[in-house]
């Protein structure tokens, strides 16, 4: 029951204002709509990028011997168990103007002036992909690993090209895992305020930053709670969509 009080209390904040919907109309101001769209875009790009590099990795691991599968899966989870502030900080070190990547590029003579990599949306996307990539690889691996190896081999023996057997057998069967992976990456990315602040340098504002600022700086709790509610709603819609689609996929398969 504690949980219920937590969730409902979160909605309208700790201040006794008469209940009204002013905050919601305030939230539709173009500047806030922009922040919400920007957040969706960055979290979406993070999820897609994770999928693009996560799927081939999961596919590769699922085809190894049992022993190597375990070794590689542990190797992929290990960084995830490290403090996420430290992992974010590591990118601060790498992407810095004086950082390793810029120094390396300058030493091999590719560039004269450092490339401004830190404090861009790109840095935020790379940083969040780094943080949540294991959450993409694991469910896809779990789904691929369950597929009967004979199925892909049968498709191959029957004359399908490697690419075709991937497209018609592996990807559809791994679809539930892919959807879960997308949700697992998208959800924490959307609410994240630390990465946009540290790697985006305040230029990239996401919903999380708005909530944080409304609560801790502007002290406008109800308005902050409005954004938290919007954030929750977006996620609830997405998760329902995911379970709906994955049920449909299961029926078809």
């Amino acid at each position, binding site marked *: 029951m504690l*949980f219920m009080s937590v969730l409902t209390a979160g909605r309208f904040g700790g201040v006794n204002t008469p209940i009204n919907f002013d905050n919601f109309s305030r939230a539709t101001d173009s500047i806030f709509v922009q922040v919400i769209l920007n957040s969706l875009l960055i979290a979406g790009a993070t999820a897609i990028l994770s999928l693009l590099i996560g799927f081939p990795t999961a596919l590769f691991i699922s085809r190894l011997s049992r022993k190597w599968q375990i070794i590689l899966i542990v190797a992929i989870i290990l960084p995830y*168990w490290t*403090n996420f502030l430290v992992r974010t*900080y590591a990118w*601060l070190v790498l992407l810095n103007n004086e950082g390793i990547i810029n120094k390396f590029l300058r030493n091999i003579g590719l560039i004269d002036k450092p490339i401004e990599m830190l404090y861009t949306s790109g840095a935020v996307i790379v940083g969040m992909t780094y943080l949540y990539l294991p959450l993409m690889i694991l469910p896809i691996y779990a789904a691929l690993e369950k597929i009967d190896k004979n199925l892909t081999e049968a498709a191959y023996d029957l004359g399908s090209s490697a690419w075709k057997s991937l497209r018609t057998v592996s990807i559809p069967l791994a679809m539930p895992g892919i959807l879960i992976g997308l949700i697992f990456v998208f959800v924490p990315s959307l609410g994240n305020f630390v990465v946009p602040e540290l790697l985006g340098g305040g230029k990239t504002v996401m919903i*999380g930053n708005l909530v944080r600022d409304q609560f801790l700086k502007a002290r406008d709790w109800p308005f*902050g709670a409005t954004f938290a509610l919007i954030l*929750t709603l977006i996620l609830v819609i997405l998760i329902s969509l995911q379970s709906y689609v994955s049920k449909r996929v299961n029926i078809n398969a």
Partner: protein
Amino acid sequence: MPKKINLSLIITLVVLVFLYLPIMTVVGLSFNTSSNSLIWKGFGFDWYQNIWTNEPIISSFQRTIFVALVTTFFSLLIGTTISIGLNKMKAGGFLRTFSTAPAIVPDLVLAIGLLTTFSTISLSLNLRTVIISHTVFCTAFVVAIVLARIGLMDPSIEEASTDLGAGPFKTLFKVTIPQLMPALIAGAVLSFTLSMDEFVIAFFTNGPETPTLPMVIYSMIRFGVTPEINVLGTLLLAISFVGVILAQRIGKVADSI
């Protein structure tokens, strides 16, 4: 399928480099003797010696361990009770989802929910509120793990114990709990790690006088790259790695019991 495997092999290698290069850079730089951590001066343990005399880091570390221990105790107690109860009640999907909700809800939403709750009941923010918050958060994970294990248990063993004359308490401690042991250990390790690393919830529900280690790291990182964080990051990495390996070993041993 040789061609495709080659492509996915390359991507897998890139992913491994992508995952390890950043943290290994931090580890490497932690042995730098220079006070500007981006300019390599020489190999040494200077900053490691330095860190033991850094009062804010040491005291926040002690606070973090304290919070994590108390949180683990209460999460395990409450989480196991809820799980056994849910199982006995043959509770449906709604109650189960409800009990694991804090694990699914974004941490930011949970954090402000707790903050507003504390302010409504006028509880001042300090380590006590962090412990309560972390317990809410970690209990959900304990419930998820223990429920999964209870599902695998054969209810007839408990019935047999009752039929043979054991009271409910005896059955609980001699039959149910030993069977749940692997899940309880996993839940304890997970709660401890989650609480120790947790930043967002602590950031909102803690008072300014008693920062936890992640909060201290956060305020340090905002000033940029410093040797202290390189060392601290390396130490935390080492702790996590040892923790994961230990958890695996314990898991194996517990499973074989």
